[in-house]
């Protein structure tokens, strides 16, 4: 049974896809959602493209002052940074009997394939992250006129609620939290070109750093970006030594405009939200993967029976 927007009994966290057809339909669907929030004095944060923010502000008129906006290009170019932003919003505004609303559009047709896959993983992880959250209604717009059919089908699998686009094929049913696991266990594509390979262990982190530094420089990175790359790969490789069986393998290659590094080891990634939980204020506690997501343009975690891989994508300019 598929629920509709009008259901009276709402769960704590309502993760809903809004299937829309083009720009006007987007404004109608999201505009109504925002006006409802404003009328009920519910805090609302809208994270979409700068162009859509401008159009929404036009449509909303004076109501726009009661809405928080953020540019998805800033918040979610790396989709792993989106959940922490929602967590912050909820922590800031949640209160007894208060419903919060959000609109987040992480997926658009120009997303590169690697980014798209991670956006889909992000959508699935939202169900895990906000499992016990406050009363929070998150609407995720999908442009069915611009996106591949498979992308829309995946939206059905990762969203317990689907609204809009009357008559659109329902596709796959909602698949629950298991979707996040499926993504974690789906192999990554093979490296493009021929990667440079280095096996490392406790004694060879310096060689790991030298290799990353040189290849980052050859990919046209400036000093600051080289330092970012060296720092992140050193931390992730250090994790392999501490938690991944004492050794690992580094693969480095170039994609157009980017440096890509795989750190592979025999460990397992246990917690699906390991890389997007904001570190606590204490000195101890893991921060390597968190920092990887803050410093890299895309981080892909995958875990298998025989081991795991962390794929780090870095562009020369940020």
């Amino acid at each position, binding site marked *: 049974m598929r629920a509709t927007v009008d259901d009276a009994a709402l769960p704590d966290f309502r993760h809903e896809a809004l299937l829309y057809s083009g720009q006007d339909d987007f404004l109608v669907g999201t505009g109504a959602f925002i006006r409802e929030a404003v009328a009920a004095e519910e805090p609302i944060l809208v994270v979409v493209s700068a162009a859509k923010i401008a159009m929404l502000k036009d449509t909303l008129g004076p109501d726009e002052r009661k809405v928080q906006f953020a540019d998805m290009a800033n918040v979610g170019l790396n989709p792993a940074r989106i959940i922490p932003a929602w967590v912050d919003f909820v922590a800031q505004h949640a209160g007894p009997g208060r419903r919060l609303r959000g609109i987040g559009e992480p997926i658009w047709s120009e997303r590169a394939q690697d980014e798209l896959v991670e956006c889909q993983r992000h959508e699935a992880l939202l169900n895990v992250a906000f499992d016990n959250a406050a009363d929070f209604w998150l609407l995720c717009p999908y442009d069915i006129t611009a996106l591949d059919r498979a992308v829309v089908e995946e939206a059905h699998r990762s969203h317990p609620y689907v609204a809009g686009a009357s008559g659109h094929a329902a596709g796959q049913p909602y698949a629950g939290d298991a979707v996040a696991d499926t993504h974690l266990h789906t192999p990554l594509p093979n490296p493009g070109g021929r990667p440079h390979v280095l096996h490392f262990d406790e004694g060879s982190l310096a060689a790991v750093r030298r*290799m990353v530094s040189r290849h980052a420089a050859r990919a046209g990175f400036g*000093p600051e970006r080289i330092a970012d790359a*060296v720092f992140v790969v050193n931390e992730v490789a250090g994790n392999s030594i501490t938690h991944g069986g004492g050794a690992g393998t580094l693969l480095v290659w170039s994609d157009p405009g980017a440096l890509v590094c795989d750190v592979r080891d025999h460990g397992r990634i246990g917690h699906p939200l390991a890389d997007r939980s904001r570190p606590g204020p204490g000195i101890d506690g893991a921060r390597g993967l968190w920092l990887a997501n803050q410093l890299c343009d895309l981080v892909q975690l995958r875990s298998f029976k025989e081991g795991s891989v962390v794929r780090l994508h870095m562009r020369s300019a940020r």
Partner: protein
Amino acid sequence: MEDRCPCARPFSESYSGCPAYQRATFTAADSLNRPLGSFLTCRHLTFGRNTSETGGFYPRCALGSRDSRLRWLAEIRPERLDAVQAISEEFDEFSAGYRQQLFATKLRAVAAPGDMAIRQELSAVVAGYVAAVRDFLESRRERLAEVGLPATELTSLIEEWLVAWTATRDMATLAPDADRLAAMGGPVQAFLGGDAWRRSVVTHPGAVGAASILQDDGVLRISRGPGGRLELAGDVDSSTVPALAGVLAAAMRRGRDIEVDMTGVLFCDLGGVRELLRSAAAMPPGRRLVIKGIPDHLLKVMRLAGWGEMPALAVVEQWETSAGVVPASGAFLQAPA
């Protein structure tokens, strides 16, 4: 010999044994100035004369001892050196064909001193090369600026240098004017292979102190400098963090502020930062951990890692002097404006 080059030679294409290694190609020539082929070498590799023993020569590192190499690297920063090196390698690759043509044309010009046609041909080759150099550098203007290389000045310098070279009968590469180079700054010297930069760093005043070495495993050296300050040189990583923790714990027992000089740190991982923060957190009331020379990159990482201000932690630009107290920046972890 303290300044004996420790590298295994000949250098391989992927040599990474010495962090100060700067790849350069050396073109050997026969007695008639005909090129014999190219070899990989290091910009810092020179010959030293062994005066005490046989009087022979030894491979000498122009940077000096390991200590001097570390200081040189700390001043340039390894990531900047690699960025300059990458641009330099692209330049070598781009210019190889031009240089070959220049060399061959000049050889003919030198062999026929009165031949105006060849002289004109040489001028045309130089002009074509200079135009290509300008395009090469202009198209990389932003990248060059990031490492401190001014594209326009660099083009003029290379042009003047080439024109001067074509005017001589000498086939060897002329050295650019040392004073001019020095005025253009370190990155230009590193890019063009001059040695004035490293001279200026190696003889940096105050670089050598009567420090006692507390620990040195070839990766990280920790020494006690003036006033009991801890001076770090090299890499702080998972292999050296335990030693740093031990030294900090011992310093804690001395019952004073702990001063740590990170000017010589080439790399510091999260575990290293964590160890410093632990020490600051463990400081008794009224005492501080004062850090000088922390790389900017680490401050950014600390901010992103969510480590906020700590009352017992101070980051300073310079040590307090008799002339006045340098204020500690307690707000170093605030988000940048």
